[in-house]
């Protein structure tokens, strides 16, 4: 049995730590702040691991219970409750583990920052919010967690709030997420409308009821209610998990400190959308249209966002684009109903992407906060630990057979090949070509940073001359090593049960007709055979080709890229400007809405509301108030008289009629 107190402790430990570090940060000091927050997250991690063990090894039944009823309105209960099954437990362990590593890493990374305590408070608060999100057993709490992680993300992107670019980035993240949240909220409203409940279990039990309904959004066209609800929910996921076209905020979020990029914008928060769709699998399975939408959006993100990584020179942004692309892969897996593959990739990705980010952060520390890869090179010699761990992360990312990323990504590609719903062919080509792209930009990063000439010495500024890059302190390298281990081996160890076994049990629901994972499982004969077999497949050779191309471009003939860029002028420009998404949004939405706002402000606010309604009604009320005040004359007999008149009026009305 999993006891409620254990679950409560898991959630509350980071919250209490966050409060201590945030409110009493000045009293407990830097050391106190990181001690309490690390202790809080460590408690959560240990207990989460224990809960996972109880579920897996001891066969404890999943927990689904309400802890506290916040309020009941019209028979809709708003509760705080926990649903802890294997899906949740896996997420809890991943979240707390990465969070713990990032906490430790932060000690080194933020060493000189004046906002040290605030930072620790935020990341602990984030851990709390994320745990609330994944452990929710109802939409209400899911939404709370959803908004809370969004808020913390907003705060952390703008952590260095004196930089205009950081403020711009966090505003952008906030606004884009609002669009997604709006859809999400409408989706939840739809669920409540049809089932009258916020509780997952009740809603899932009534899913056929929703499926039987239709609704008219545009008059005359009937929509299946389930399709509308699922697409709305997925719009929420698109915002949080940065899917095209709501992806624009994620690259900019790199304005935040690197530990945040690792924790929030790579490993955990951005995967909330993936988690949510997997959690809602009973609903999504009922609507093929919704699944196709998911599939196409994911495939587009996976391929086209990867392309952008090929031309960027900022080390963190390259990793950020790779995150976008990998989130696309996960979404594709959701679209082909391979939920287990999506969650499996989510897990492996959390480890190796956090690793890559922290390695990038380590490089940035070593380079004294320089992020431009063109000014790096040859760092292998100076930062061996960072180099080797980054290499492991890179291999996992490009899906080198045997690494964790290999198992999850190959499973997704195989599942997509096996799928038959509309859009599957398009998606298959996207994810296949994506392999080449991934390999190219990943090793471009490795080669530009760690191999080749030491460009930082010949820097035009002459700024870095006096500083030789140095290996980072142990608080930075230890998390790297700790994360490198699962990045390498977790896939091998867990692919059998998580992907093809019955790991998720009832947590994930797949219609038999959509079950692509089962089709892939037919050809699966253990991780070793799977890896060996991969050597004969197209993805492997595409990957090798990608690495080789990168090697030619950035080690063998470094002058080649600029020549090609010149040759392919317009295309290169298109990529360099990120498909002009930002410009489009700026021009259409930002400027357009400002213009609309300005018109409405002048006509509506100033003239009508302020002029007629607000000031007008205020004048009327004020005048009336003045008149009535005169009635309060202070004379006793006036008062008594008022009472008598009131009495006789009441009498007259009820007695004489």
């Amino acid at each position, binding site marked *: 049995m999993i006891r409620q107190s254990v679950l409560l402790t898991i959630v509350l430990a980071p919250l209490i730590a966050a409060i201590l570090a945030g409110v009493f940060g000045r009293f407990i000091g830097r050391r106190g702040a990181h001690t309490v927050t690390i202790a809080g997250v460590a408690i959560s991690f240990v207990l989460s691991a224990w809960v996972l063990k109880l579920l897996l090894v001891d066969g404890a039944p999943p927990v689904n219970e309400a802890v506290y009823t916040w309020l009941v309105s019209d028979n809709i209960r708003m509760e705080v409750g926990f649903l802890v099954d294997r899906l949740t437990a896996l997420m809890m362990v991943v979240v707390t583990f990465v969070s713990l590593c990032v906490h430790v890493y932060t000690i080194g990374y933020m060493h000189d920052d004046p906002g040290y305590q605030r930072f620790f408070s935020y990341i602990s608060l984030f851990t709390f919010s994320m745990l609330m999100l994944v452990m929710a057993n109802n939409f209400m709490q899911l939404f709370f967690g959803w908004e809370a992680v969004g808020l913390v993300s907003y705060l952390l992107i703008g952590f260095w709030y004196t930089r205009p670019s950081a403020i711009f980035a966090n505003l952008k993240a906030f606004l884009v997420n609002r669009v997604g949240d709006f859809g999400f909220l409408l989706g939840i409203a739809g669920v409540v409308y049809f089932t009258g409940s916020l509780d997952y279990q009740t809603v899932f039990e009534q899913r056929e009821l929703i499926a039987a309904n239709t609704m008219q959004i545009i008059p005359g066209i009937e929509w299946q209610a389930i399709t509308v609800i699922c697409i709305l929910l997925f719009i929420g996921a698109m915002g949080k998990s940065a899917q095209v076209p709501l992806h624009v905020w994620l690259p900019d979020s790199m304005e935040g400190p690197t530990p945040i990029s690792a924790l929030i914008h790579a490993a955990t928060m951005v995967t909330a959308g993936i988690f949510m769709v997997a959690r809602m699998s009973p609903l999504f399975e009922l609507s093929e249209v919704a699944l196709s939408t998911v599939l196409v959006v994911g495939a587009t993100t996976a391929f086209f966002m990867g392309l952008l990584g090929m031309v960027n020179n900022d080390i963190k942004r390259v990793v950020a684009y790779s995150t976008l692309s990998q989130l696309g892969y996960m979404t594709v897996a959701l679209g082909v109903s391979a939920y287990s593959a999506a969650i499996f990739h989510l897990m492996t990705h959390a480890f190796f992407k956090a690793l890559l980010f922290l390695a990038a952060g380590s490089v940035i520390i070593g380079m004294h906060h320089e992020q431009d890869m063109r000014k790096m090179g040859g760092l292998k010699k100076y930062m061996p630990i960072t180099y080797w761990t980054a290499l492991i992360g890179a291999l996992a990312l490009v899906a080198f057979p045997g690494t964790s990323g290999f198992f999850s990504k190959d499973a997704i590609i195989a599942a997509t090949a096996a799928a038959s719903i509309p859009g599957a062919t398009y998606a298959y080509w996207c994810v296949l070509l994506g392999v080449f792209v991934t390999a190219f930009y990943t090793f471009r990063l490795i080669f530009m940073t760690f191999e080749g000439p030491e460009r930082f010495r010949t820097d035009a500024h002459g700024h870095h001359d006096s500083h030789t890059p140095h290996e980072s302190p142990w608080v930075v390298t230890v998390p790297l090593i700790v994360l490198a281990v699962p990045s390498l081996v977790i896939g091998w160890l867990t692919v059998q049960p998580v992907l093809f076994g019955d790991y998720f049990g009832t947590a994930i629901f797949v219609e038999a007709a959509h079950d692509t994972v089962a089709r892939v499982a037919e050809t699966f004969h253990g991780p070793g055979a799977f890896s060996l077999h991969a050597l004969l497949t197209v993805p492997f050779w595409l990957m090798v080709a990608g690495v080789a191309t990168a090697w030619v471009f950035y080690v063998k003939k470094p002058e080649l890229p600029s020549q090609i860029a010149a040759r392919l002028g317009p295309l290169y420009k298109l990529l360099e400007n990120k498909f002009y998404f930002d410009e489009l949004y700026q021009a259409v939405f930002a400027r357009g809405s400002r213009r609309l706002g300005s018109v409405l402000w002048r006509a509506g606010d100033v003239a009508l509301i302020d002029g007629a309604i607000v000031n007008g009604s205020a004048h009327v009320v004020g005048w*009336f108030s*003045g008149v009535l005040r005169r009635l309060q004359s202070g004379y006793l007999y006036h008062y008594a008289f008022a*009472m008598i008149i*009131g*009495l006789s009026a009441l009498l007259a009305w009820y*007695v004489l009629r």
Partner: protein
Amino acid sequence: MFDNFGMQAAAAEIFLIATICVVLLVDVFLSDSKRWITYALSLLTLAGCAWMTLSYGVNERVSAFSGMYVADPMGDVLKLFSYATVAVSFIYARDYLQRRALFKGEYFVLGLVALLGIMVMISAGNLLTVYLGVELLSLSLYAMVAFDRESTVAAESAMKYFVLGAIASGMLLYGFSIMYGIAGTLQLDELAVELRSVESPIGLVFALVFIIAGVAFKFGAVPFHMWVPDVYHGAPTPVTLFIGAAPKISSFVLAVRVLAEGLDSLVANWQDMLIVISVLSMAIGNIVAIAQTNLKRMLAYSTVSHVGFILLGILAGTNDGYRAAMYYTFAYVIMSVGSFGMILLLAREGFEADRIDDFRGLNRKSPWFAAVMLMLMFSTAGVPPFIGFWAKVEVIAAVLDVGLAWLAALAVLFSVIGAFYYLRVVKVMYFDEPTDTVDIQAGGTLRAVLSLNGLAVLVLGIVPSVLIDLCVRALP
């Protein structure tokens, strides 16, 4: 013969009367410097009453003293809340009274007798006890208003309160007597049975009008509200605080015991009357409050408007409605105590702090207490997530449930108008320059309790189920 008296049901009242006598006697032998003993004894008395009520609490309706006395879960909840309110009123009053040489034993004795009156009304099973409760409370309040003999304003307002109160009592009694003439009983439960068989209700409606007038006066509802602004303004601030808090519980219970329990069968009639009174109260209270410059006076009109909202819940005539009204009463009392507490906090020798301008720039002097006042004002205005918001939601929902949508719409409209004058206080605190640089002089206890009071408004708003559950337990 004494077996069926069921005296233990009234343990709290008996204990209170006994300790009032003790306090009265002890106080005679105390010198002014030892007056704190009276104060401490009064607080202990309240704690003792709470203990009595808790240990003799009932799960269902129990009557005692030949049905004159009724104990039920609602009564227990209301009594406990009254003790807490009176205790807080005493604590807030202490500093102010000491500074103005009003720190006398009689103040606390009068307060305790007022509490006794409230308790009698809460536990009334008979119109006779209802009336005695009303008089016990009213007489104590008259004396408390006039407590500061140096102040002619206080004496004048006490006089007005007394005369108008006597008129209202007369109306109430006249109504009761006609009711007795028709039904032949004063016992509320018998009355309810008896009235169902009366065919032509003209005489009953006639009596009802007088009773409603009396009840409305105790509430301070329009057009029986004229005493409210003058008394709130004229009385010493601790007394205003006292009047604005615990007696509201008694007004609520007066309406519930007499109208809902006794005159249940006339619901269609008193609903109509209360609609008129409620709408007038919300309208006049909110509109006139805007023109006030004195904070106590403004809060008095705000009380009138809140009374309109409480009546909304009662006039629904359903159990949900009574519960909503009860919740609103609790919420209002918490907010009212806090708001007047803020005036007492800022008051000092020769400075009453009862004008809105006295709150200017409070944020500079004390950001925390400016925040407390902000929370109180927002809550009183009905801004979420504070408790006042939920209170309004509950009563409006109750009114909607009985199909009075237009009334709900009016209520929303008036609460919007009301928001204006609360926000003005906030504006003054945060955006105006302070008029002086004197620091807050209040003592630690007052600061601590007031801080808790302010936080309660927020916390009970975020977790509304705490208080709502309590009301559900009281009125299942």
